[in-house]
């Protein structure tokens, strides 16, 4: 807007002005990558939180018949697997196979043994992961031969199973809950520490600021992870400690950003103008400082969360993070990494979930940064 000779604008028809937040929201909406990522994140959260209730498997159930089965959209057991499962069952029943056939999802099996076969042995059939609903059809008069039928249980393992025989889909989703929860919560911890520290340093200024920032500089250059691991080793794997440790590593960047903002806001003349009006410190904080601090804090929080998730995954990968029976994407990836070549799906599915979530968070963060602080790229 330029000043010409005539300064007064004609009465605008627009009575409500467009605030900087309004401008920012419009810019964000125009950024397709960011909006798509936002949508994707929402979807991911929904799937991880609600998904496990819709998957027929529990994430801890072990299917000993289905150890390291590859992912498939078709139902298990595949035709060639039934015989193997049958052999396992019969071995436990200590009987020999005479004949069997598969029809319409039910198997009819004839077995013979050296001793009379008790009907109760059919329990073994029910306990199997492959068969269900065992019914005795016929028994020879001497009890040495029996014919029974059982339904073949249809299971779907869309992501396959892991080393122990647990469904990977449900495990991945449940792991997602943990990873996202820790990401969010530890992120809040890091943000809180960072904001408080940075704001204090920035607003108090002077010697206090110098000392506080020197500390940050020193800490920044140390590979914090070693200290965190050291603490975990010495004091055991405590869930709360995990939070604090993860948050404690990552607050430094936030502190720096907030302190920089605080310093620049303090120097801005609108703060001095408010002081000249006699506004109290609380009023200045409420009306001038916090609204202008919010922008960068929000931006860096969205960029912080992926770091938190990575850090938690890092610790879990090494075996120093979440413990059984809980699981996180880091744990799954760790196990998957050990099984490449023979069971690639164990690595690829959780890795995909983790990496796509991280990408989405980064795009949202970048989008927010461009929207709230547009500088020529």
């Amino acid at each position, binding site marked *: *807007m*330029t*000043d*010409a*000779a005539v*300064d*007064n*604008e004609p*009465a*605008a028809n*627009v*009575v*409500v*002005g*467009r*605030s*900087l*937040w309004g401008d920012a929201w419009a810019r964000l909406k125009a950024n397709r990558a960011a909006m798509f990522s936002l949508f994707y994140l929402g979807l991911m959260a929904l799937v991880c939180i609600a998904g496990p209730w819709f998957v027929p498997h529990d994430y801890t159930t072990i299917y000993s018949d289905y150890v390291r089965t590859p992912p498939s959209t078709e139902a298990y057991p595949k035709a060639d697997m039934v015989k193997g499962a049958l052999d396992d069952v019969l071995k436990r029943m200590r009987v020999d196979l005479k004949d069997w056939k598969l029809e319409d999802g039910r198997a009819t099996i004839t077995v013979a043994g050296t001793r009379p076969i008790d009907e109760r042995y059919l329990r073994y059939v029910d306990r199997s992961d492959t068969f269900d609903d065992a019914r005795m059809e016929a028994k020879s008069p001497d009890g040495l031969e029996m014919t029974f039928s059982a339904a073949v249980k249809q299971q779907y393992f869309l992501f396959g199973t892991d080393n122990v025989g647990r469904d990977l889909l449900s495990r991945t989703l449940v792991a997602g809950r943990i990873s996202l929860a820790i990401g969010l919560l530890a992120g809040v911890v890091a943000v809180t520490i960072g904001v408080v520290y940075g704001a204090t340093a920035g607003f108090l200024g002077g*010697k206090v600021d*110098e*000392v506080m920032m*020197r500390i940050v500089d020193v800490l920044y250059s140390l590979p914090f992870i070693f200290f965190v691991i050291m603490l975990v080793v010495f004091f055991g794997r405590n869930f709360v400690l995990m939070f604090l440790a993860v948050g404690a590593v990552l607050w430094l960047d936030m502190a720096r950003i907030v302190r920089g903002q605080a310093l620049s806001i303090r120097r*801005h*003349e*609108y703060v*001095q*103008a*408010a*002081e*000249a*009006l*006699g*506004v*109290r410190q609380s*009023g200045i904080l409420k*009306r*001038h400082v916090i*609204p*202008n601090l919010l922008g960068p804090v929000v931006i860096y929080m969205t960029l912080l969360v992926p770091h938190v998730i990575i850090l938690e995954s890092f610790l879990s990968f090494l075996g120093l993070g979440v413990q059984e029976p809980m699981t996180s994407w880091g744990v799954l990836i760790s196990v998957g990494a050990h099984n490449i070549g023979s069971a690639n799906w164990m690595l690829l599915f959780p890795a995909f979930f983790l990496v796509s979530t991280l990408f989405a968070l980064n795009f949202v963060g970048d989008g927010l940064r461009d929207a709230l602080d547009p500088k020529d790229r």
Partner: protein
Amino acid sequence: MTARETILDVRDLKVRFRTLDGDVEAVKGVNLHVGAGETVAVVGESGSGKSQTMMAAMNLLASNGEAAGAVDYRGRNLLGLSKAELNTIRGSRISMIFQEPMTSLDPLYTIGSQLIEPIRRHRGLSRSAAHEHALNLLRLVHIPEPERRMKSYPHELSGGQRQRIMIAMALANDPDILIADEPTTALDVTIQAQILSLLAELQSKLGMAIVFITHDLGIVRRFADRVYVMRRGEVVEEGEAEAVFTKPQHPYTRMLLAAEPTGHKAPPPANAPILLEGRNIDVTFSIGGGFLSGETLMLRAVDHISVRLKRNQTIGIVGESGSGKSTLGRALLRLLPSDGVIRFDDRDISHADVSAMRPLRRELQLVFQDPFGSLSPRMTVGQIVTEGLLVHEPALTAKQRDQRAVAALTEVGLDPNARNRYPHEFSGGQRQRIAIARAMILKPKVVVLDEPTSALDRSVQKQIVDLPRNLQADHGLSYLFISHDLAVVRAMADYIIVMKEGRIVEEGPTEAIFDAPRDAYTQTLMAAALDTARFRSDHGSLLPASRL
């Protein structure tokens, strides 16, 4: 005037920028020409396109800009040349210096190496020969101790010295044309005068043409042979300098010339009470120091100053940057800690703490220099203007506050609907009005105006000067008007205090100071700012140095 050969001919130049909000046409078909050895001024306000015209000629536009038309230098169209061909002309036949001396030199290389580089590039001299030439250049621009300075880094020099070095670099290869894009705008008035006289001296020695881009009509009058007046990307008037000044044709030119602040302020009656008084004020800052980083320097920003402001009086405090005038203003309002006695309305407030000062704040207001930074960006104009009411009249309802906002905005000449909009939707002049409204809504007694017009164009300045004057008459206010712009201060104030490096150099009634300054520094200041004598006589010879 002997006919000069035209060496630069700009024909129908258009410059366009591609931005996120669409295409912006900065220059819309400009024609101008420069003759050998003459001084041509291109005058305009911000947004007129004066800089972009010359940047286009030198192919220095930003990456999203494109130029069309012809810029003929001695018959060759600069716009059509390849990079390599253009580089034989830039820096050797046509040179350019810029507005920001503080950032225009490379901070990582010595002065010597930066001088030598263009010399060797264009003349192919050996190192030692180039070194010699560089030394001569430094002497030409009157840099003391040239040998030592060759090894200095830019951050060791002042703004004025850096600009001299820029000039030396630009003239290293004896160009035909020197383009100077607002070279003195960022410098203090006295330094400005030195740089301008240096340019005049160099022109008479070396005979190059100068294209002088500026918004300051005073400089144009003293310096240029011919003038082009630009507005919104077009040339609206051109002609010989004297002619344009004495008989302007275009209404815009007339308006620019008329925008010089006029009028004067009558002094208050002799028995007017003293409202605000400061006795022996000292303000000291500590610079540097801190944990382990060397000693702390104490800077005496305000040194033993006494001021007496009467009711209905306007005291103008003038000085250059670093004089301490802004610091004094804030110290008197108790926004900065200081030593000495401060009295307001017959009360001693020298040691009043924040809560004691709070009720007094409504009577002591401050308008800042920067209209862009002094309004909180995330509050509406209405909220900004009425914030003071939240503190001082908390009993008001929201509706009542809104009414007061309407009244305040109307009084400063803004549409009341503005109160629902945000600061970034307004221009600089409008924002300054908002800032004034914010101060006036509390009905203060004393207002400190800290360089209120410095960030504004000349044409807008006049309005921002008239406004406080009218308000003063209506409400019986007293002002402390702080500025480095002598023309503005002369129109606003009835009493002047001249400051330099924290001390009062001279003070007295306005006309006395302006007509007959006694102190040497005051005289220099007046001469630099207000002298209408030309830097060069009409015959091109240099005027005696004592005149300046």
